[in-house]
């Protein structure tokens, strides 16, 4: 598909939408940081502008039949020349709209949430930085640009997760997120290099149209898998999934923004972006499917035992990302993207609602919240229920339709096991979501004193203003609207994504019924254990302590990594290298020096003060010279 050069209006508007958040970051960080109000204004204005442009583009270009591409030379060195520009096609337009919307909403919401925090201006500057990198990632016209913004997203996430850096766990979590995604990016980067060296062109359109033809199948699979490594890192897939739950140390809006709707979705977005290339390699798709499935199941089990509300949503995010990848891996481009879209809406909503609770009650434990009377906060309570239901896949909410699309694609596969895994995942999702909802709605015993909250979120809860609450609620309501509405836009989306020529999507009525049944079973189980009057609010897993521990310890993945870093990286490699440096390398040098001085000391005894021994030496040398001349 050949690209079309966009008109100058679109170029300037898009570039402005891309650049303004960065300008906002610079302006706030370096100039207006000490003063809150201008900072907020700048940040929100830029964000709003990007939002407007994104939606205008989406609407304006809704009927395009060829991608619009603009590119300028950013850097060149050797055979690598890297462009900077944008590629507007249905996928990027949709994603742009999602990113700018969520980003804007989170900024609005944060007005309430972060009110009173001393670092609020800095926080907004980081949000702007994040928005910039995410927009750049979404519209990137080539893979290298995408990678660059991908890394910047990682950076902003590092900054935002560790925003309350005086808290050890927060800075630790930020570091962990950065390093683990970096590990994945390693593969991504190598993949890019392989592609660059073999194709000489990294433009996304070029990759999609030529990679399959120009690369040998093995090379194609290799590069696809390498690039997928980046996805594994950023979208927190197995085995690099453990950073995401820890990343909830950041402020809750950040969690909503980064770790549900946008940043982690970038991985899925990348796969969608290069979907034609992936589609050409069956092996790559199979790997994707397998990893997605494993991740989804693992994360679901983890979510079943979590008590921290954000942790639950974090696990569910991981699980849903796995689900999206399953859809993509099963061969359905649309399913993955659709689930990505709906998930963005309801997951953001879930986090933002949770944020209200956390903000209000100063705790992350939803049992605790419930006891403190969470259900009296009506708007968040309703919204969280809607979002939860959407997550669980309750008809007719957004999640239901997108999940259905994924299930449908799974059902098309030869092996049934993927579908069964998907259904199991749906069951578990319904169970843990409603476990949380039932607990929230039905407190076991109300608690009065607030002493028992062991200092989560130790920032000052001074901003219990009605303004803050109002702002937050507004954001929630908008998102709830999306959650309800998006599901019905599936047909529009499929047409748009496929350039108005949607493929025929097979419908399986039995699957529909089964899926609904599965969800109902999950909900019922959750009701039995948590929702019904007099329920002990203890999961059935309590009876299998081994399993419960396994899930709670995240399948010991974290321990594995910690041991790996502690014992292998630090304990063996680093230690050995350090010892080598001190003892062997440096030791050799010092040894040479000491040897030299020692030799000097020894030789100084030649000068014994005894004249005749010196004369010996003289005569001896003369004699030796004589012998040498004699022997010639």
């Amino acid at each position, binding site marked *: 598909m050949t690209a079309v050069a966009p008109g100058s209006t679109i170029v300037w508007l898009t570039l402005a939408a891309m650049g303004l958040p960065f300008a906002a970051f610079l302006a706030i960080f370096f100039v207006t940081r000490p003063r809150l109000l201008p900072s907020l204004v700048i940040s929100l204005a830029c964000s709003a502008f990007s939002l407007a442009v994104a939606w205008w583009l989406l609407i304006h270009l809704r009927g395009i039949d060829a991608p619009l591409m603009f590119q300028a030379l950013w850097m060149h*060195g050797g055979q690598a020349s890297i462009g900077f520009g944008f590629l507007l096609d249905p996928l990027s337009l949709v994603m742009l709209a999602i990113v700018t919307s969520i980003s804007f909403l989170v900024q609005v919401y944060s007005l309430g949430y972060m009110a009173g925090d001393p670092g609020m201006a800095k926080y907004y500057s980081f949000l702007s930085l994040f928005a910039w990198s995410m927009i750049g990632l979404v519209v990137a016209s080539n893979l290298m640009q995408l990678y660059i913004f991908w890394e910047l997203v990682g950076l902003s996430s590092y900054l935002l997760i560790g925003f309350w850096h005086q808290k050890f766990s927060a800075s630790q979590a930020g570091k962990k997120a950065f390093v683990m995604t970096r590990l994945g990016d390693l593969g991504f980067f190598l993949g890019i290099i392989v592609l660059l060296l073999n194709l000489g062109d990294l433009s996304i359109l070029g990759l999609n149209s030529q990679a399959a033809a120009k690369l040998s199948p093995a090379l194609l699979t290799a590069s696809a898998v390498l690039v997928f490594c980046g996805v594994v890192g950023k979208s927190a897939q197995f085995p690099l999934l453990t950073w995401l739950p820890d990343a909830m140390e950041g402020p809750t809006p950040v969690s909503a923004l980064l770790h549900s709707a946008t940043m982690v979705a970038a991985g899925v977005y990348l796969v969608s972006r290069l979907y034609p290339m992936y589609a050409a390699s069956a092996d790559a798709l199979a790997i994707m499917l397998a990893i997605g499935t494993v991740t989804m199941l693992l994360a679901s089990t983890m979510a079943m035992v979590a008590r921290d509300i954000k942790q639950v949503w974090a696990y569910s995010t991981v699980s849903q990302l796995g689900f999206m990848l399953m859809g993509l891996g099963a061969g359905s481009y649309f399913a993955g993207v659709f689930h990505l879209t709906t998930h963005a809406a309801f997951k953001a909503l879930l986090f933002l609602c949770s944020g209200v609770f956390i903000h209000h009650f100063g705790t992350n434990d939803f049992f605790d919240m419930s006891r403190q009377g969470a259900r009296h906060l009506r708007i968040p309570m309703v919204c969280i229920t809607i979002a939860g239901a959407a997550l669980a896949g309750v008809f007719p909410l957004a999640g239901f339709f997108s999940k259905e699309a994924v299930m449908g694609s799974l059902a098309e596969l030869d092996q049934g096991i993927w579908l069964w895994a998907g259904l199991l995942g749906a069951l578990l999702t319904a169970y843990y979501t409603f476990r949380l909802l039932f607990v929230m709605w039905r407190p076991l015993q109300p608690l009065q004193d607030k002493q028992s909250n062991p200092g989560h979120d130790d920032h000052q809860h001074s901003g219990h203003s009605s303004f803050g609450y109002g702002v937050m609620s507004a954001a929630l309501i908008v998102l709830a609207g999306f959650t309800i509405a998006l599901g019905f836009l599936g047909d529009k989306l499929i047409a748009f994504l496929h350039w108005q020529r949607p493929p025929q999507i097979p419908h399986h009525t039995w699957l529909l019924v089964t899926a609904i049944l599965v969800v109902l079973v999950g909900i019922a189980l959750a009701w039995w254990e948590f929702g019904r009057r007099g329920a002990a609010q203890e999961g059935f897993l309590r009876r299998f302590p081994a399993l419960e521990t396994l899930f709670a310890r995240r399948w010991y993945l974290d321990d594995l990594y910690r041991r790996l870093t502690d014992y292998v990286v630090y304990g063996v490699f680093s230690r050995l290298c350090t010892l080598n440096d001190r003892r062997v390398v440096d030791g050799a040098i010092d040894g040479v020096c000491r040897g030299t001085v020692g030799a000097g000391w020894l030789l100084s005894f030649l000068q014994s003060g005894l004249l005749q021994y010196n004369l010996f030496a003289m005569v001896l040398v003369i004699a030796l010279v004589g012998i040498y001349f004699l022997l010639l």
Partner: protein
Amino acid sequence: MSFPILSAIMLSPGLGLLAVLFLPRENKRAVRWISLLSAGLSLALTLYAYAVFDTTAKGLQFVERVLWVKSLGIYYFLAVDGISLPLVLLTSIVFFTGVWTMWDLEKRVKEFFALMLLMVLGVYGVFMALDLFFLFVFYDVSLFPMYPLIAIWGSTRKEYGALKLTLYLLAGSALVLPGILYVYFQSGLFSFDLMEIAAAGLPPSVQSLGFLLFLFGFGVLAGLWPFHTWSPVGHVAAPTAVSMIHAGVLMKLGAYGVLRVGMFLCPQGLVEWSPLMATLATVGIVYGALVGLAQTDLKYVIGYSSVSHMGLVSLGLATGTLGGVDGAVFQMFAHGIMTALFFSSVGHIYDRTHTKLIPELGGMAKVMPRASFFFILAALAGIGVPCLASFWAELLVFINGFQVYPALGTAAVLGLVVSALFMLRVVQRTFYGEKNQKYAAAPDMSAVMVIPRALLAGAILLFGLLPRLMLDTIQSGVAPLVELFK
């Protein structure tokens, strides 16, 4: 001949030196001002030269060539091309900021600035001279002031560090000088003019030995593994501005020497020895990062990160490809600025808290946000965050390294993760977390002292966002060079 701008750049620290020498030692203020002025003058001239440099023309520009010693064929031959000009710019920036950073120095001010001016004079000379004799002279001139500079004004184990550094580096130049003479006589031209020798070409066997001599001779200063151990020790011992110039500029002299003398004169030697060079470079990259993980002294960490980053430079050079050498040169620049920023931040912290041990610090981001910001920015540049200057350099090096040596390239990319791990670990332990109450009242940088750091940070950002500002220049110099390796 037009205005000899290169001589002017080089001699402005020389003038400063003379002026400082004749000032009474009590007049510290005048000494500082003169140093800063001469630094500023050279910076301004360099910026001008950079601006008027024609990136489309290949070859040397601003040539000044005078026969110096007829009987030996020594020329006073100054010129820059796309390779040396960025490094001259680097020197000017780091020098200027370094002088500014040391404004508060009170101990033996006159001698300090005199030595620093002398050292910088040498550095300029190395980057500009295209005559082997003068190149070597300037090379050593830039090295030996390190000894007093570290030994007098340094800190931790300063005498040991100074001695080790000086001896080690001059041992390196003990290989360079035979190499220069070897090449001089083997070429049969009786001229020390680098361009003439290169144009005439050397026999392959000569190139092989010559390249090895230059590689290890200059490589010591470039921190080539396993000849790197002087660098952390020296950096730890040195005072702030000296660390800045040393890690920021002087280590580049080594890499520049390998490039300008070794690779330029002995291209066949590079072709022959590049696997060795690439292997050592890669080991250095990973090894430096791994050792950096275990350090508890801030300056040690930076020292080892320098080893790692200079490994990247060597790897880029070893590829012998356009992109790789581009990347290597850019990395020299980027690393120079970055390390200077590192050391100037650490210097401030050390001045105020009198410790640079990571376990003793903590929460510094709250105590001194400005210093912390600069350190963190440098750390981010160090781990290759995009849109900061060193990213592009690393990118190019990795691409070309991977292309030429896939296994080594992969290992080098792995080093990137380790370096992220250790940089972030340092940032977390030092700047985040609970603050140590002992240093809670330590003052942050004053606004005046922010300026030099901001200059460095600005350079990192500027060239990170607009890499072509530098890469176009570099490429104009590298492109003719890599033709030799074909």
